[in-house]
């Protein structure tokens, strides 16, 4: 099981703060693929991803119980 956190417009579009997936995808790339095909997420190429609060690249591995965050382009400051 993994948790996928949503923020900003993604949170509003999906209507949830997080998505729980029963089975951990093997990599960030595989997670993106699932989000696109199963949940219809768009423009994931413009998002950053974090695993357990650290930025991750497509090749990074996802483990059971990891917390993934989808991070749209930031606009703080």
């Amino acid at each position, binding site marked *: 099981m993994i948790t996928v956190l949503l*923020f900003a417009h993604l949170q509003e579009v999906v209507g949830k703060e997080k998505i729980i997936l029963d089975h951990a995808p093997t990599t960030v790339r595989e997670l993106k693929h699932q989000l696109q095909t199963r949940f219809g997420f768009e423009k994931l190429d413009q998002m*950053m991803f974090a695993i357990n609060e650290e*930025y991750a*690249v497509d090749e990074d591995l996802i483990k059971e119980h990891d917390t993934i965050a989808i991070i*749209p*382009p930031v*606009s703080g*400051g």
Partner: protein
Amino acid sequence: MDEKLFLITKEPLNIEKIVNKVVRPEAGAVTTFIGTVREFTKGKRTLHLEYDAYIPMAEKQLSRIGKEISEKWPDAKTAISHRIGRLDISDIAVIIAVSTPHRKDAYKANEYAIERIKQIVPIWKKEHWEDGEMWIGDQLETTQYPKGHPEKEEVE
């Protein structure tokens, strides 16, 4: 809680308090950057703003910026607080305070901090205008993250 050098908070920000976190006998200069809510952006009137953050990660990223600054300017001490939630015109969204023994470094390190905040800290701003609202992305408008992640030198 608010003695943290790197803080995301829903409370109004106090400049004095944040400056005092970096004032030291060996530092003769403190620069601060205070980001306030601007009413007009490119002619469009903002009614108010809303900030969201991935709080624990945002605080980690702020503290990483502090570490980067200490590597580049070893005598610098940095404190950053960012407010989230609803903010009105002229409210303070962010305060960066940097103290150094000599003033030139205090300016450079401070400007470095605000640039990095706009690159790597998971905080998002929603503009509320008279005719609508929108989450603002990628203010710098220079990066598209074609590979879905910031370049190596940006995240390392």
